[in-house]
């Protein structure tokens, strides 16, 4: 009987030790990176958002909407149309086809986005202009970019409407070359080469769940 009880004690001690070890392991393991650890955003959603951003940029580049939005500036001061003193759009995309695509793909689904325009000054200094800025992106933001080529003969655009009445960027007669030649007219990117190439602009879209 005494022997039997000792055995039970031993077993109890071993099991208690295991429980102790197991709880330490569990405490460590419970902090493992699950899809929902850091936020309600998940890898799947990030992949999806990146793919949508890519799709929007590709579609906008294909129809020329992307370039028309990059050229959507006042010839007098080089700032975008319909913005306040901050110099960029804050509550959605610009009133152009590209802006509408961004709004419908992201904003309407509770996804915030920033759009940056990266370009070169003096052919080597990288500059960035904000087109849309909704705030500091979260740690779960994803970013996609697309290169846009501006030629000397590309014309600035101004606010207009589509046949359906939606806001669009409509070409004016002012080409980048003519704007650069006028002393009282300007564009926020300078002509980077002597040839017909005006500049290369990298349009970056950063999206994240609000």
């Amino acid at each position: 009987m005494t022997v039997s009880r000792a055995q039970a004690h031993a077993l109890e001690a071993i099991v208690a030790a295991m429980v102790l070890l197991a709880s330490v392991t569990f405490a460590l393991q419970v902090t493992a990176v699950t899809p929902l650890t850091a936020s309600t955003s998940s890898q799947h959603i990030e992949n999806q958002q990146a793919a949508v951003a890519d799709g929007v940029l590709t579609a906008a580049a294909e129809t020329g909407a992307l370039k028309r939005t990059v050229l959507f500036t006042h010839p007098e001061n080089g700032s975008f149309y319909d913005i306040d003193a901050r110099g960029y759009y804050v509550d959605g995309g610009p009133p152009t086809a590209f802006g509408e695509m961004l709004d419908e793909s992201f904003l309407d689904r509770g996804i915030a986005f920033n759009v940056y325009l990266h370009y070169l000054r003096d052919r080597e200094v990288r500059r960035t202009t904000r087109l849309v800025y909704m705030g500091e992106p979260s740690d779960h933001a994803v970013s996609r970019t697309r290169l846009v080529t501006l030629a000397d003969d590309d014309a600035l655009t101004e606010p207009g409407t589509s046949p359906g009445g939606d806001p669009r960027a409509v070409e004016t007669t002012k080409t980048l070359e003519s704007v650069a030649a006028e002393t009282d007219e300007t564009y926020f990117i300078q002509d980077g080469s002597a040839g017909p190439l005006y500049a290369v602009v990298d349009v970056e879209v950063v999206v994240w769940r609000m």
Partner: protein
Amino acid sequence: MADVTDAVERASDAADDLPRLGGDDRGQLMLVAALAIAVLLVGLALTLNTAIYTENLATRTTDTDLDGAVNHGGAVEAGAGTLLDEVNREGGTYGELADGFDETLGNWSDGAATLAAVRGAATDASYVDHADPVEGTRISQPDAARNFTDRNETADWTLASDVGVRGVRFNVSRDSLSTSNASSFHLVVDDETNAVETAVYRDSSRVFVAVEDGGGVETTCSVAADAGDYVTIDVADGRLNGTACDPLDAVHTDLDGSVTVSYRNAAEAEGTYELYVNETNATVFDATKYEPAGSGSSPVAQEALYAVTVSYVYESGETYVYRELRVAPGEVA
């Protein structure tokens, strides 16, 4: 397992001789069992956690990421297309055009590479001169106040026969247009099996583009235009003033192979236009229809590159992509 049951039974049997220990022993047993179940649950939690984590890892994309390379290819094609026509507009001999394009694309590649380097990608784009460019002709009218007739002011005339056509663009004065569809300016593109006829006319407030496809069905799109306005029509891109005009897609869907391009009622439209054909200027140029380049008169037929070959490299992480592209923006048929 410890032999505890027998001890309990024995204790009950010898109740008179020994103190009863059954209650104590059972309590210990239950404690052990409870602890064992606790360990089991902890183990289960670990297994579950591992499974979730594995799923998380497994769904991360590990295959070669070609998105960047594909996107860069698209940007190269679009950029080279824009630059090709810019170079063509500046004019010159075929040799000068090729050199000019080579240099311009080099500038483009430098700028693009600097911007892409920030994203951790090494890129390069260059003109492939061992693949001969397709030498063609640019037919254009730079004089915005002239109608679309040929040099001798013939209103119904053929611009080029049996050719490949690309980059057909018009910038038409709204005021010059006819108000009736039937007698309006027509662009006719004919591949000898089917013909696509595009008419441009107006009413008091809008400009209409009516496209009669290969099957004879006419569809229309329109854009608002006031007096004094100019309207742009990009036939290959299917755009009227920059917005989509779906009927124009008929030039892609209904035509095949070489085509003949002609104008009808060309006196019913004024403005500028350009288009590229894939026959050399020596073949296309006809002194009864065209003026030579630099004459200051319209319309002009001059040397232009119809298509060029461009190569690009995109290198990022484990990805290395090299491709050669044929660049001929806005090809019809």
